[in-house]
């Protein structure tokens, strides 16, 4: 483990130094070099993560044959990396071929990454994969997770190219963005237009502020998250002992806080690290703990995902539904669209019924907010609605309820259905 940390720091330092030289000294010509550095460092990271891998006991009989060992250890991961990189090249071709095409063809480069993601998630290899690599699943899980973010970034990029928000990317720009190492694994789903703008502007780099951002992220990610995880599901409720029912409540709340520190901590590090290169990455969190309802929560939590869903699914679907149902049914069309969006967000996070229920809870929450808000606006009138929105006691109660609801929903995010069903046995 110690070696992994040292190796990571070494890789990151070399990456930072080389990228700074490429982007700082060579300016526009450096983008090609920068692309190359990103591709190589991604491969480096994958090799690094392979060192942790262990072969589970189930496969030991297979290991007797040297051929099988080679196959499982090398061939499968290599094939996955090959598919991964092959897909990125294919997507580059699609953007160039179809982004400016007329009619429905221009949707091809926007939809292909989404289709690829669905195939990648449900393909038998990946369903079997985690079982094969039960204890050393990091490799496959990781590429699958990274792929979720990658496919969304590439899909959004294709849309920006089509809408001429950005010029057609040249090969080096495309590769730099697709493989941009700081946001490769856990996001944010930062937009290409923002990446490109910062790639070609040479504003002074806020070194001190970026380093502070990384340190803050590190404290959240390593220290706070680990501490909170001790009180969450793995550390508390499912430690193999019977528990009082209050521990279920503690575990849910601690898991929410753990996930916030873990995820936003990682994003802080990614944003700070990218800034050291002069590349702007979008913010992904805006104090979600302050959210006063579930709709507000999604404006503050994983913002780049909800923005992506808004632009790519919610808006087109709402418009389509309004065209079918008529403008008088606008609010119902929006409610249906909300439901679909949050169910998709649920299953995007992973394969399993629990993720569906996670999505369902948020779908119900946001739909409730949608109708509730319409009702309040209609019945309170301007002045009283404003007073309601600005009232501190109401805000405090609303924030409390939202925190509880979100914590409860994370029960389904963190645990498989088997585990959730076993909870009554654990509680005394």
């Amino acid at each position, binding site marked *: 483990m110690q070696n992994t940390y040292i190796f990571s720091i070494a890789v990151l330092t070399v990456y930072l130094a080389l990228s700074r030289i490429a982007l700082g000294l060579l300016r526009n010509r450096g983008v090609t070099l920068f692309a190359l550095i990103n591709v190589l460092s991604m491969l480096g990271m994958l090799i690094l993560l392979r060192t942790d891998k262990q072969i589970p006991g189930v496969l030991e009989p297979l290991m007797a044959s040297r051929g099988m060992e080679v196959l499982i250890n090398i061939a499968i991961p290599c094939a996955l990396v090959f598919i991964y990189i092959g897909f990125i090249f294919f997507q580059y071709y699609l953007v160039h071929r179809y982004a400016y095409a007329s009619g429905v063809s221009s949707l091809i480069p*926007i939809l292909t990454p989404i289709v690829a993601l669905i195939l990648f998630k449900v393909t038998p290899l990946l369903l079997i994969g985690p079982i094969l690599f039960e204890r050393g699943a990091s490799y496959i899980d990781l590429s699958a997770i990274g792929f979720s973010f990658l496919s969304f970034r590439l899909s*959004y990029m294709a*849309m*920006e190219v*089509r*809408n001429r*928000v950005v010029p057609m990317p040249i090969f080096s720009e495309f590769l730099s963005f697709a493989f941009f190492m700081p946001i490769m694994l856990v996001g944010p789903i930062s937009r290409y*237009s923002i990446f490109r703008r910062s790639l070609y502007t040479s504003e002074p780099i806020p070194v001190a502020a970026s380093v502070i951002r990384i340190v803050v992220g590190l404290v959240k990610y390593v220290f706070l998250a680990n501490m909170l995880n001790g009180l969450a599901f793995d550390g508390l409720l499912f430690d193999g002992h019977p528990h009082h029912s209050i521990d279920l409540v503690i575990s849910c709340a601690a898991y929410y806080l753990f996930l916030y520190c873990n995820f936003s901590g990682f994003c802080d590090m990614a944003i700070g690290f990218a800034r050291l290169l002069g590349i702007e990455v979008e913010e992904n969190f805006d104090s979600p703990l302050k959210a006063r309802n579930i*709709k507000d929560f999604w*404006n503050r939590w994983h913002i780049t995902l909800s923005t992506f869903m*808004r*632009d*790519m699914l*919610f*808006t*087109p679907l*709402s*418009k389509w539904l*309004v065209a079918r149902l008529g*403008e008088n049914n*606008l609010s119902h069309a*929006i409610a249906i*669209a909300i439901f679909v969006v949050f169910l998709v967000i649920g299953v995007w996070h992973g394969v399993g019924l629990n993720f569906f229920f996670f999505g369902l809870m948020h779908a119900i929450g946001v739909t409730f907010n*949608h109708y509730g808000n319409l009702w309040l*606006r209609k019945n309170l009138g*301007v002045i009283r*609605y*404003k007073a309601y*929105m600005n009232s501190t006691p109401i805000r405090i109660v609303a924030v409390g309820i939202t925190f509880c609801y979100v914590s409860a929903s994370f029960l389904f995010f963190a645990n498989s259905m088997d585990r959730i069903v076993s909870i009554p046995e654990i509680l005394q």
Partner: protein
Amino acid sequence: MNQAQVIDRLQKIFDELFLDPVVLTPALTAREVEEWDSLLQISIVVAVEGHFGIRFNMGEVEATQNVGQFADLIVKRIAEKSA
């Protein structure tokens, strides 16, 4: 039709949709108006498409940074329609 004329017409659409009156200027952004969230955005887009008889592509409206750019997009679509 130019940007100012479009904003003038947008003002009327916005007055009907917003509870709290908004004064539209080219530099105004959705972020500055508390009521203007992604749900209300749908109502705006549907109303604008109906009023001007135009269609926006996916992600186009979201890519505009302020009311001025939104109005420019509408101007462009109207010009394309009559061309």
